[in-house]
């Protein structure tokens, strides 16, 4: 009885260990809309339309700094600053004329907005002697929105357009620079990840004959 049981267990074990697993194959497929940065002779950034109550740090300086350093490094192409007045909100015909001077180039432009709402709320704060007391304090809700467009200068064609939004609740009004930086870093990080994604992995079953 004991021998039979052992024999049966071994057979079951062998059956499961020998049973064939499905052949799963993985392959990359290009992501539609990935920007071919290497196709262009020159890449420019400029003309971002700004709608923000913040002047320190200066959003325009921060934007051009991001694109000409971090973004440039990530896409491995030199990005130059192109002084344009209003970018996307510039009358399109004027912008088209201006871009004719830069053949086979890519312009990165867009719209950058910050909306700050201030309100008061009751919060636990420490008084001068270190004791916790309830007091009215001002807090802010920050909303940063960045619309980025990649425009082919020759055909004046928008290759890709993305909008990123980040919010910061209960922000301290005294820490404007910190609030700006934390939102700006999150948005630019998302933009980088999306712009650099070129392939997506697909998974399929390869079938065996008779299956």
């Amino acid at each position, binding site marked *: 009885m004991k*021998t039979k049981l052992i*024999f049966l267990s*071994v*057979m079951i074990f*062998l059956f499961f*260990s*020998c049973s064939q697993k*499905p*052949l799963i*194959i993985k*392959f990359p*497929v*290009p*992501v*539609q*809309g990935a920007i071919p940065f290497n196709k262009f002779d020159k890449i420019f950034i400029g003309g971002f339309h700004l709608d923000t109550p913040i002047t320190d740090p200066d959003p325009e300086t921060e934007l051009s700094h991001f694109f000409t350093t971090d973004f440039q490094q990530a896409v491995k192409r030199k990005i130059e600053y192109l002084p344009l007045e209003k970018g996307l909100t510039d009358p399109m015909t004027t912008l088209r004329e201006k871009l004719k001077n830069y053949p086979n180039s890519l312009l990165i432009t867009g719209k950058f907005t910050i909306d700050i709402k201030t309100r008061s709320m009751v919060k636990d704060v420490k008084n001068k002697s270190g004791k916790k007391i309830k007091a009215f304090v001002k807090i802010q809700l920050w909303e940063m929105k960045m619309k980025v467009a990649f425009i082919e200068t020759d055909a004046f064609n928008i290759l890709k357009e993305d909008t990123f939004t980040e919010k910061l609740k209960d922000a301290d009004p005294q820490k404007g620079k910190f609030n700006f930086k934390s939102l700006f870093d999150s948005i630019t990080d998302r933009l980088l990840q999306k712009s650099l994604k070129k392939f997506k992995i*697909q*998974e*399929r*079953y*390869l*079938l*065996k*004959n*008779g*299956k």
Partner: protein
Amino acid sequence: MKNLAILTCLILFIVSCAPHRFKSEFDFANKLAQQGLWEEAYFRWKKSLSRGDETAAIHNNLAIYYERAGNLQSAEAEYKKALKLDPGNTQLLSNYKKFKQHIEKKKNEN
């Protein structure tokens, strides 16, 4: 005597489960595809087809080849041929579903 019979059975079972040489051109092509040698695999799947071995598996694998190469029209045609031959194959159905989702996503991105 009884133990000897059990031992013989075991040996036979193990030998039948042991890795075997490729039974056909088709199995070899699958192995090539797994190793990333897609062009070589494609050639062999096509060869199997031209010999008259028309199976859902060959059409499915050819569909994957086309999908990988970005030739989505041919991929869809091959998936359809495969589904006609074996409509209840769960792995094939799963592949076709994923393929359709992939196409739909591409359309939305455009």
